């Protein structure tokens, strides 16, 4: 291992943690041990949910009420793969320390987590947790290890009335940063060996924002230095307004905006078929 002082050797992803600096390893281990004791105590039936401070030597491990709820959920649904206190289980699931609440909002909010089976890539499914539960889980993971968070104000798009330029700027940024995987029309695309970039046609602004911030699965991370929050909002504006809401002006059917593949299918499946049937009728007896 080379020294951690070289640039770019931050232990954690995300900007907020990086700025603050990571807690030391011993401190985390200690905290983990403490939380384990707390969990044991809970299991033992001692009602100590609001009094972990009695055992704790460090205030950072103190969980808020929301996080406590999240912890309960975590230990029911996530602990098998991600391990106790989100430390990860080799071969099953990665550590969630430092992934941030944004990551939970994306993975759990889109139903990708919990996984039903190990695959090349987690699939989008019907979410298993409702909005509140997702928030609780997110809060728990956030309080455990920090990491990127969604903006507190909950604004993910630009107001086109006040800022009409946002759409075109978002489009430019979308083409530079996003189309290579998600396609010009946002229809998604294949990656190597069974992985894929999903379609953007029915993703909520919140989840797009969270995905950019955290880089889920094989998506690269677009932290706030690469794309400022304003630029992210512009991109999301382009996706929602232009790709999701705007009716395609060129026809009733947009052929999934896959480009020449579906167009080629249609020219044979519709054009040639209609005309061959016409020819059959012309030359037919009846």
């Amino acid at each position: 291992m080379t020294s951690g002082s070289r640039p770019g050797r931050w232990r954690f992803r995300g900007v907020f943690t990086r700025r603050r600096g990571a807690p030391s390893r011993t401190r985390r281990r200690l905290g983990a041990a403490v939380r384990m004791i707390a969990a044991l105590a809970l299991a033992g039936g001692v009602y100590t949910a609001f009094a972990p401070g009695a055992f704790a030597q460090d205030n950072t491990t103190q969980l808020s009420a929301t996080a406590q709820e999240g912890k309960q959920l975590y230990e029911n649904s996530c602990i098998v793969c991600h391990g106790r206190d989100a430390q990860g289980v080799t071969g099953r699931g990665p550590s969630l320390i430092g992934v941030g609440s944004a990551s939970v909002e994306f993975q759990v909010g889109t139903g990708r987590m919990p996984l039903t089976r190990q695959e090349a890539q987690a699939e989008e499914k019907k979410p298993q947790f409702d909005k509140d539960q997702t928030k609780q889980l997110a809060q728990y993971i956030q309080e455990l290890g920090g990491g990127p968070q969604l903006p507190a104000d909950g604004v993910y798009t630009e107001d086109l009335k006040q800022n009409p330029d946002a759409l075109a700027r978002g489009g430019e940024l979308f083409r530079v940063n996003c189309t290579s995987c998600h396609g010009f029309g946002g229809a998604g695309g294949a990656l190597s060996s069974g992985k894929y970039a999903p379609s953007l046609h029915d993703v909520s602004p919140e989840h797009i924002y969270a995905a950019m911030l955290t880089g889920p699965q094989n998506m690269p991370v677009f932290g706030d230095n690469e794309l400022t929050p304003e630029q992210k909002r512009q991109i999301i504006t382009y996706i929602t307004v232009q790709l999701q809401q705007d009716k395609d002006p060129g026809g009733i059917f947009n052929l999934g905006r896959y480009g020449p593949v579906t167009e080629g299918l249609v020219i044979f499946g519709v054009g040639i078929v209609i005309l061959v049937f016409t020819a059959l009728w012309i030359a037919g007896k009846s």
Partner: protein
Amino acid sequence: MKRRKVDLAQAPVTLAKGVDERYQVATPLRALLNKVFPDHWSFLLGEIALFSFIILLLTGTFLTLFFDPSMQEVTYHGPYAALRGVDMSAAYESSLRLSFEVRGGLFLRQMHHWAALLFVAAIVVHMARIFFTGAFRKPREANWAIGVLLFLLGFLAGFTGYSLPDDGLSGTGLRIASAIMLSIPVAGTWISASIFGGEFPGHLIIGRFYIAHVLLIPAALLALIAVHLGLVFKQKHTQWPGPMRTNTNVVGERMFPRYALKQGGFFMAVFGTVALMAGMFQINPIWLFGPYRASEVSSASQPDWYVMFMDGLVRLMPNWQIYIPIGNGYSIPPLFWPAVVGLGALTTVPMFYPWIEARRTKDKAIHNLLQRPRDNPERTGIGAMAFTFFLVATLSGGNDVIADKFHISLNAMTWAGRIGLLIGPPLAYFLAVRVCLGLQQHDREVLAHGVETGIIRRLPNGQFIEVHQPLGPVDDHGHPIPLEYGGWVVPKKMNRVGALAPAIKGFFFPVEKPAEAPVSPALPPVTAGEQREEITSGR
């Protein structure tokens, strides 16, 4: 001056006389009006291409009135909000303008693009018909070669047109085109630099492609189409074998009144289909692609369908590079083989197929009667082989979209394509030959024994026999006298020999019911065919 009263009824006669005195058209015009064309649905496929070409000329001319083939950088200020303030080439800007700021411009642009796809699709389907029926045999070898050239020209016309709007997708295509030029040994860099006027992309390529797309290629297409049709006219259309039809006659309808009217109606149907598709299905939404930037690309970047086979071959090509360790070292990149050699071979070798086949079979006769695919299993096998190759290559050209939509690994798709390209064609050959032989065998069985009636009779001795309806006369024992194999439809079901009405009335029925003779009193004797043949050989 005395005014003569104009006799309106006589006016056309006078006019016609005047024209004929000057140009002597009476005899050739009558011959033209009277020309006989055979009638079969498969003879109308080429017309689809012809009519699409006319639509292309009409809509294309409209587009030129608004398109600006310039790579000058401009800033967009039009109604499409998502590109406002973006720098782009004038070509792309004018393409957006004609899509959004010209009334009906988008509709005509889409018609042009759909007609282009239909043009090449119809060419391919028509070529398949010609091939599988042996219509390319002497005396029509040259017309087959012209047809292959027309496909190549259609390919080039399509590719240049695809590149003109200078959007993100077409720019990517241009970049690949430049890489293909670069891959040519020795002269590659010179060719690319000469065509692009320097390094890719330069400032000239759109203008150059434009003049090729609107003048050079259409002119060549027009000239070749004229020759193609002229030869069909001169040599007369081929026909299927059948009652009254021989190698030396054409049985069908005279051009006027009926045949020409059908053609006119079919043109309108093709035109209508293109219009309907242009309205219903969005094609090539360039506004989503943005202006071409060398750093931007989209997943699922594909050429139009008729270029996809080449793109597929490029995708499937293993990464074999040839290094030549002389001097600084030279190399032939793998791109060269599928894109230059492959495209070259696939568009020229088929051109020579008629001569190759004639040489192999030592066949020097003139053929005006078509063969059913089953009657020449070897040719059908070769065709199936070529078709499978083309299909696997084309599908591989879209393998990323297939992988994405059907949740297959992209790498697995590539390997499937590589293996399929090697195994598929021989397999298709084998299957096609077996199917042909099987169908032939069945025809022969029916000719020898008659149609299966589905009636089982039990004889007094307890034996069961199946009753067959003989198609021809029977001998003294009541057994059918075997009929000669004619290479034409053999009725295989009782309803085809008049036992029942056709299951689906008329629609899929052959033009000439083989079992049914014309009702006219002018019905020629059954043996008339041979007689005609003797008379016509006027040498």
